[in-house]
C-alpha cells in the first residue's frame, strides 16, 4: 500500500496562506507529521495560492526536500510547474497527473521521459469524464499502453479510475470499485490509486463516507490512496482492512500498529 499524504494542498486556506507568506516552518511541520503518520509520498499542490505557480512550487520543493526524506508528488496540470518541480527533485518524484486528453498528454509525456517520475494517470480523455466501467477501462488501456510504450515501467504507473460523487448518482461508488478491479485484471503489472474525498462531495458526514469507501477500495485491490494520514481512524481502518483483505502477511502490520498504540476506533 502506498500512501500519498494530501495535506499540503493550496485549496486549504491555511496552506495557501503559508505559501503566500513563505511560512516554511508551518509547511515543513505539516510534511514531517504526515511522514511520521505513515505517508510514503507527500503531495504538493500550490495551484490556487497567490503568486506565480512555478515560483511557489520551486520554493516549496526546495523547502520540503530538506524536511522529509520521502519523495514528493507534484500536483499540477501545468507542464511548466511540473518541469520546474521535477528538475529540483533529488529523489524520484511522482506527478499528479497526466490524462489521455491529447493536449495534456503531448505536454506532459516528454517530462515523464526526461525525469522518469512515478506517474498518476487519471482516466480522462478527449471524450471527457468517463461514465461507465468500460469507458474507464478503455482510457486506462490508452494510458498504460502509451506510458509503457514510452518506456515507463508498469510499476511506476498509478491508474486513477476517476471517482465521482455518489450524490449525483449512487452508482458511482460501485463504478469506481469495478473499474479498479477491471484495471487490476487487465494490467496486472500496473498500480491503482484514488483520492477519498470526491466520493462524498455534497453529502453530510463526509469523513465517514470517505473511510467506508476506502475500506471497499482495499477489497477491490486499490494499491494506493491520496489521503490525510493524520486522520487516526482512517489510518487504523486502513491497517485493519489490509489485514482483512489478506494483504498483511500474518497480520504483522496490524499487530505492530496495535502494539504501538496506533489503532484508534
Amino acid at each position, binding site marked *: 500500500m502506498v500512501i500519498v499524504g494530501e495535506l499540503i494542498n493550496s485549496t486549504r486556506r491555511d496552506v495557501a496562506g503559508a505559501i503566500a507568506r513563505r511560512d516554511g516552518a508551518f509547511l515543513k511541520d505539516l510534511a514531517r507529521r504526515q511522514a511520521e503518520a505513515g505517508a510514503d509520498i507527500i503531495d504538493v499542490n500550490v*495551484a490556487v495560492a497567490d503568486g506565480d505557480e512555478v515560483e511557489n512550487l520551486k520554493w516549496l520543493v526546495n523547502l520540503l526536500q530538506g524536511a522529509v526524506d520521502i519523495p514528493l508528488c507534484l500536483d499540477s*496540470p501545468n507542464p511548466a510547474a511540473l518541469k520546474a518541480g521535477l528538475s529540483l527533485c533529488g529523489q524520484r518524484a511522482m506527478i499528479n497527473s497526466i490524462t489521455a*486528453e491529447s*493536449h495534456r498528454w503531448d505536454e506532459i509525456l516528454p517530462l515523464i521521459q526526461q525525469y522518469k517520475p512515478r506517474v498518476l494517470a487519471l482516466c480522462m480523455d478527449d471524450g*471527457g*469524464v468517463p461514465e461507465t466501467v468500460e469507458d474507464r477501462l478503455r482510457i486506462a488501456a490508452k494510458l498504460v499502453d502509451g506510458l509503457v510504450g514510452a518506456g515507463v515501467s508498469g510499476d511506476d504507473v498509478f491508474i486513477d479510475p476517476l471517482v465521482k460523487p455518489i*450524490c*449525483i448518482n449512487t452508482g458511482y461508488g460501485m463504478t469506481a470499485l469495478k473499474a479498479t478491479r477491471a484495471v487490476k485484471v487487465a494490467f496486472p503489472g500496473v498500480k491503482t490509486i484514488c483520492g477519498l474525498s470526491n466520493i462524498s462531495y455534497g453529502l*453530510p458526514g463526509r469523513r465517514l463516507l470517505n473511510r467506508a469507501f476506502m475500506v471497499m477500495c482495499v477489497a477491490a485491490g486499490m494499491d494506493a490512496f491520496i489521503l490525510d494520514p493524520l486522520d487516526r481512524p482512517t489510518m487504523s481502518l486502513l491497517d485493519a482492512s489490509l489485514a482483512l483483505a489478506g494483504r498483511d502477511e500474518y497480520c504483522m502490520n496490524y499487530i505492530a500498529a496495535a502494539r504501538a498504540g496506533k489503532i484508534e476506533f
Partner: protein
Amino acid sequence: MSILSEIKEAMISYNPQWVKELTEKALSEGVDAHSIINDGLIAGMNYIGAKFRDNEVYIPEVLVVARAMHAAMDVLKPHLIKDDFKRKATFVIGTVKQDLHDIGKNLVIIMLEGAGYKVVDLGVDVPPEKFARAVEEHRPQIVGISALLTTTLGQMRTTVEHLKPYRDSIKILVGGAPVTQRFADEINADGYAPDAASAVEKANELLGL
C-alpha cells in the same frame, strides 16, 4: 389546501409519485396546465432551491425534486400547445474549452429549468466560437460560462472576449470553483454566482425578472 399547494407540498416532501398523481388529478379537475407549472411545480422547485442555497438540503434531495418535476412535466406536455408555455428567457450554458467538468453546470441547469428558463446546454469543452454560434442560433438573453480548473480560467476570459459583438443583447454570468467576484469583474462578465441556487437569482436580477 388547494391542489396547487398540495403539488408544491408533494414536491418539497420528495415524493415524485405523489407529484405525478396530483398533477393528473389537477388536470382532470380542469386546472390550467400553466398554473400547475407556475404555482405548483416551479413554486416547489424555488422553495428547494432556496433551501439548497442556504445549505439546508443536499444535492440528492434537489435531484429527487427535479425528478418529480420531470415526471409531472411528462404528464403536462400533451396539454401544452406548442410554444404556448412561455419560458421566461433563454439561457445558453457550457463549460469552457479544455475543461470537462459538468456537475456544477448541470445543477445550475436543473435550477434554471425549475425556475422556468429555457436552457440550451452546450456541454463541456466548449470553444469560444461554439458559444458565439449558439448565441446567433438561439438568441438567448443570457449566457452562462462555467470553469472548474484554475488552468481553464483563461479560457473563460477568452470566451467573454469572443462574445463581445453580442454584448448589447446578452448578459454573461460566470461561475465555478476557482471563479471569484473579483475575477468576474476583471474579465468584464455581467455577473458571478457562487453556487447553483444563486445562479438563478443572479440571472433573474441581471434580466430584471
